[in-house]
Every structure is written in C-alpha cells, then in structure tokens.
C-alpha cells in the first residue's frame, strides 16, 4: 500500500502528472523530500493548501500520511 498524492490546478503541470504515488508512511519532511524539486518548492508556498483524505489541514507541516492515504495539493483557486 502506498500514499497517493493528487495534484490540482497548475501543480499538476509542475509535477508532470495529475497524481503520483509514494511509499508509506511519511511525515511532511519525508513527503516533500520525495517530490520532484520544482514541485517541492511550489508546495512550500503558503498560499497552497494540503488536504489529507479530503480534509484540509490547518498546518500542513503536521501531516502524517500512512498507507492508503490520499494527500491533495491545492493551489489558490482561479478567480472569475
């Protein structure tokens, strides 16, 4: 079992795919260390949100993902 990382909006372009999978378990530092460099840098932007299994995290650095979890990276939503 793995962690699925879902990339929304332009983060999918930066990451090169709409989702990727990583081995489990991982905390925030371990998760970001496994990402492509450009994506890891983008994820550090405080305007980007993180959801764990569909629930937004108030503090993304507190993330702890285990096997079967879905982590979503959400950039700012588009305006009108």
């Amino acid at each position, binding site marked *: 079992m793995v962690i699925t990382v879902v990339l*929304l909006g332009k983060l999918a372009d930066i990451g090169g795919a709409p989702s990727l999978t990583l081995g489990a378990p991982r905390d925030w530092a371990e998760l970001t260390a496994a990402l492509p460099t450009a994506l890891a840098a983008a994820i550090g932007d405080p305007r980007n949100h993180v959801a764990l299994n569909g629930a937004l995290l108030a503090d993304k650095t507190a993330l702890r993902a285990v096997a079967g979890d879905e982590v979503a990276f959400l*950039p700012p939503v588009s305006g009108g």
Partner: protein
Amino acid sequence: MRDIRLLTEMFLPGTLIGPFTQANKGLGGVCTFVGEVRGDTGVVALELSHYEPLTLPGMHQLADRAFERFALMGLLMVHRVGMMRPGEPIVCVSAAALHRRDAIDAVDFCMDHLKSAAWFWKRELRGGAWHWIEPRADDTRDLARW
C-alpha cells in the same frame, strides 16, 4: 427546494429553472444568474477541474450559509466541470423567495463565493496554448462585500 449539483456534461439552464420555479409554490420572486464562457478574448476552450472530496461539499456549505443568511424558499446551484467552449453555460444559480431582495442578494452572494472561494481551477486555451487563470484582486474585493 434545494438542488446543488456538479455536472460533467453540457446543460441547458432553462430545463433546470422551469422545474425549480414550479417546485417552490407560493414564491414571490425568482432570481437567476447564468454564467457562460466568454467569446471575446480569443479563448477557444475553458477547462474546469475540481477535487471531488472538497468541491461539492463546499458548494453545500455555501448553500447552508445562503439559507442561514437570506429568507429563501429554494436554491438551485449548478456548476460545470470539464471542457467547455465559448457560449456554453458554466454556472447557474437560482434563488426563490417571498421577497425579491432575498432572492437577488442570495444569488449575488453565491456567485461571489463560487467565483473566488470554491474549489475550482480554470485554464484557458488561447493562442494554441493552455493558460491557468490566477486569482484576481477583484475577487477578493467581491468577497469582502459579504
């Protein structure tokens, strides 16, 4: 009557608004807004993506807030995702109330929030390339009205 939906296929707002109006017997007014893909800026296509676990639940939370804030009899909120062409509808919000101000304000409130605080990401195909649409200062200003 409350009808909140995400649609993946083209829809005809008229086919939703008629039954919605009929379902709210005794209403005093209905206000409807339909947003379409603009055709004046060289845009060939617009693609909306969403995140299933957050987007529709977020629309329901917005509807809850509209019902708390305005004296509504009914609310219809329908949003497209996927690929759209100029002239196709993106969003339809219709509110039914005893009095016009509640219906008009509820639609305005829902639209400002759908445009700037709902979980949608948009990109446009123009000049042969895709361009992501970034948040605009206008959107923040629109939200601050509420």
